[in-house]
């Protein structure tokens, strides 16, 4: 880890000013990802602004019936919060599908969205990586890429976003509230993370100095018919090879509305509203699920070690949709 200085912010605007003025400065809250990366010399901030004392831990009901999660709420406190567990069980169960109890006790909701890819080559400073060092090349494209992207990737980067929580937030159509040097703005979750293109060094659309202050959940929580199906190399504490977050609104056997987001397959949670509408007004049958699965992964490309994910993703979508219809939810204790 390189040497750095430290300050503790006591107000959002001073934290933003301090970080905007120094391009090598970073915010730190839970620290579970940034400290890991600093120990690997992947992140090398010269200054850390500790934001943990900012008043961003509250949870509040919004006038439209939605829920606002303070940016510094821990993943554990969010998952176990009675209102989240009751109204947004998809989010609770998805959070509990990720990391460990110890990490969820420290990691914050905003930090979860900002965690970096677990691409082996991004972490290994001895190898080229366009995300870590733009222009150096992508070691994963011709290398070992079992955990890598099959959708929306570019020749410059085939990394995936590792968050589970972000996948549920994508299905729920959450909104991220940020404050920056130019004031406040709201970013839809689907616009928050980006595809790599020729600038894979940028994971998100956040601008320099911008700080996440809260995450808004819309009123519709899909609390009855939902599931989070996470497929991985071991049953607990592993990143998703493929995951599927589903929220359904049913009228008898007919689907009124479907939300489907995939994790582990792209540089961002993968949603395709034009595929979801194929289910609107349709009976909840395996045939219809298969059509949507095909549409969701249309254009998928494998890079050898990860080619299995294309078929895996399709089957996972079909299975997750059936689980949501049958109210088969993940069994993590709440």
């Amino acid at each position: 880890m390189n040497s750095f200085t430290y300050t503790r912010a006591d107000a959002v605007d001073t934290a933003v000013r301090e970080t905007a003025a120094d391009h090598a400065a970073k915010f730190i809250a839970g620290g579970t990802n940034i400290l890991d990366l600093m120990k690997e010399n992947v992140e090398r901030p010269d200054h850390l602004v500790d934001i943990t004392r900012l008043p961003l831990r509250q949870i509040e009901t919004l006038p439209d019936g939605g829920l606002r999660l303070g940016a510094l709420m821990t993943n554990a406190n969010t998952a176990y919060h009675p209102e989240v567990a009751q109204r947004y069980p998809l989010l609770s169960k998805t959070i509990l599908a990720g990391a460990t109890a110890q990490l969820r006790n420290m990691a914050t909701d905003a930090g979860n969205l900002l965690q970096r890819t677990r691409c082996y080559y991004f972490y290994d400073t001895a190898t080229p990586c366009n995300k870590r060092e733009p222009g150096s090349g992508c070691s994963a494209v011709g290398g070992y890429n079992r955990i890598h992207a099959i959708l929306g990737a570019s020749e410059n980067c085939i990394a995936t976003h590792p968050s589970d929580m972000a996948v549920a937030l994508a299905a729920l159509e959450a909104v991220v509230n940020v404050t920056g040097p130019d004031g406040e703005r709201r970013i839809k979750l689907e616009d928050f993370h980006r595809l790599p293109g020729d600038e894979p060094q940028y994971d998100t659309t956040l601008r320099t100095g911008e700080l996440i202050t809260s995450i808004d959940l819309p009123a519709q929580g899909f609390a009855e018919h939902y599931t989070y199906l996470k497929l991985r190399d071991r049953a607990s504490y592993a990143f998703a090879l493929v995951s599927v977050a589903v929220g359904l609104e049913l009228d008898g056997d007919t689907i009124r509305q479907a939300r489907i987001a995939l994790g582990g397959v792209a540089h961002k949670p993968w949603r395709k509203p034009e595929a979801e509408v194929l289910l609107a007004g349709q009976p909840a049958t395996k045939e219809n699920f298969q059509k949507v699965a095909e549409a969701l992964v249309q254009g998928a490309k494998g890079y050898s070690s990860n080619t299995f994910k294309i078929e895996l993703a399709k089957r996972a979508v079909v299975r997750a949709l059936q689980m949501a219809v049958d109210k088969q939810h993940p069994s993590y204790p709440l």
Partner: protein
Amino acid sequence: MSITVTTAPVRDTAVALPPQYPITLTINGVEKHLEVAPWTSILDLLREYLDLTGTKKGCDHGQCGTCTILLNGTRINSCLTLAVMQDGSEITTIEGLAQGDELHPLQAAFIEHDAFQCGYCTPGQLCSAVGLIKEGKAKTADDIRELMSGNICRCGAYIGIVAAVEEVMHQQQVQAPTYAI
């Protein structure tokens, strides 16, 4: 014959001494006033500066759980937590679990159930189990397995660990703490 010697570039400025930050921590009930460099993790502080070597360093990246401690009553990985950020906090380590010569019920149960072999992961397993019971979410052995997945045991003593935690969990019948952020 000539020899060319290449020297490393000389830095313009000397490397600055690390800045020190004053903090107060209450560790196993004892208040400590400390000065720490900003990059000092709680784990390194405990082991290298306070002679509390019961907390172990395994991976130093939050993957193995052997550095688990209780921070303000909550289990966390001490390797991924900067001491300077925890000014004013209360920390309980493995050294703080027993009451004098009387073992914590989990420590006694670990012995009873043969829940370790080499013992390196045990301090982390114990602190993690204390946190798990306090959280009050686990009801079954499966829940324990899921919620203890952040603690790796290379000897594979998991059967004994789950049995010990399950026994104490049911003995204590601890009511789930009321929700507080």
